[in-house]
């Protein structure tokens, strides 16, 4: 099993969700973060205080998948989140030792080898 952590543009979230849905990837978690990368900083002014905003709004996705779905999911994200402009974000694939489903305590080790090709 792997945990895919993806940082994308907020305006691309819905497209990514749709792409993952098409790829039959269902479970995922989303959070608002701020990122710093190669993008131009914004300058803001509040009365006499002028600041350079080093951080930009991004969305972080966390998706636990079994091995056969890693590439499917990563590719779905890479396609759907892509604009070609600086700031598109990154995808990390992390190893996972164990996964548990809280609802029924399924210890999902055996679960890492589902049927590789979706339905």
């Amino acid at each position, binding site marked *: 099993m792997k945990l895919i952590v993806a940082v994308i543009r907020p305006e691309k979230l819905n497209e990514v969700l749709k792409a993952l849905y098409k790829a039959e990837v*269902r479970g995922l978690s989303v959070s608002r973060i701020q990122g710093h990368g190669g993008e131009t900083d914004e300058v803001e002014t509040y009365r006499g205080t002028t600041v350079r905003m080093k951080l930009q709004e991004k969305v972080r996705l966390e998706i636990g998948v079994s091995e056969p779905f890693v590439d499917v999911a990563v590719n779905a994200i890479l396609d759907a989140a892509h604009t070609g402009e600086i700031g598109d974000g990154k995808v990390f694939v992390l190893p996972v030792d164990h996964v548990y489903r809280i609802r029924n305590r399924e210890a999902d080790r055996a679960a890492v080898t589902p049927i590789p090709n979706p339905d």
Partner: protein
Amino acid sequence: MIHPLLTLPTLATAAAPALNGADTAWMMIATALVLVMTPGLAFFYGGLVRSKNALNTKMMSFAAMGFIGVLWALIGFSLAFSGDGKWIGNFAYLGLRHVGLAPHDPAHTIPFLLFMAYQTTFAIITPALISGAIVERMRFRTYLLFIALWSLLVYAPVAHWIWGGGWLSAGHGDVGVMDFAGGAVVHITAGVAALVAASLLGPRKDYSRQALLPHNVPFVLLGTGLLWLGWFGFNAGSALAANPQAVLAFVNSLLAPCAALVVWSLLDMFRGGRITAVGSATAIVVGLATITPAAGFVAPSSALIIGAIAAFPSYYAILYRAKTRLDDSLDVFSAHGLGGITGMLLVGVFCRASIGGVPIPGSTDGALMGHPDQLGRQALAVLVVGLYSGVATFVILKLVGLVMPLRATGRQEDRGLDIGLHGEEAYTTGEGALLLMEHERPVTTSANPAGPKPRNLVEA
């Protein structure tokens, strides 16, 4: 509110009482100010709940503006302010018939329509006050039905008893209760109803197991500011003219909450070492609720004392209530009910027939001036009104409960009533919100689209 002559047969208002521009101007603005108390209340209450119920809580106030506003104009006003019945008015003003641009009463100097509009704003906010007791769990439609019935069956009669020439009102020869701007009519009725409603509905699922904290204290303070602003209209407007009594009520509505705020802050400081913002907001409202029945009858120095006294019962009642199973969630009884009771009783103590040589219409000398009898009348009114509101609220809710569920479902309570009952969120970024075409729109919440059940990849 003083209408000693309201009990005269209304047809006898022949002598063409004159309109007064200044009084008209004042009463228009007073009416507008009282109306704005309801959005103020929406923010006061709405800030005290969790964000998932912020809209539902606010909507309980806003919807009252619509539903009670219309109902009152059509029926309620007539029930409260027509005829010379002891218990209830008649249908003379049904649908605003005979409610016109001339003063209706020789003692009035403003159009009868304006009097009606002013009263409408009172009729709106009173049931909205109750909502604080049953936030975060009551079904919205049930709430609407409940306040509609309550407005007709509790508020209108009690308003008639005390202000409409009924058996508790001064002119009627019977009792002569003094309630300048609604200590009994508004705050005791709503406060006791809150108690009953909270008991009948039962506590929120998480009550006393989790900390249920205010999601937005600035909104509570904003609501407080709007309430205080509006309360000047509420209390000083109850003189129905821009006259010295209005000024008296006005000044008292400034001073009493100041004093309540100081005492509450000191209590906070002695108890926990820290003055709290939610406490301060509460103190202001308690000070205002308590001075309400007394505003036009007591001297400003008495208002300071009344405000200071007001802090005690409410402060300790709130502390005590939180340890019980009674989930009067936003402490409507402790703030408004007790405020109304304290104020009604203190009227009997501090009221004055004249202040600085200026006679105070509708007032008399109270216990402090050596006349304890008014205190008895006030106590009677507290008892009767409290009891009536309690019993009637109980009956109404039991009846309503036969027709429809009182509470939202457990799932709606978990996810929040905003999504569950209104299909909206107070604060949203729109993330993960997929546009739905019209034909896809379900009447209620929908399940995931059907189709080949996807394998959840992390599962087997």
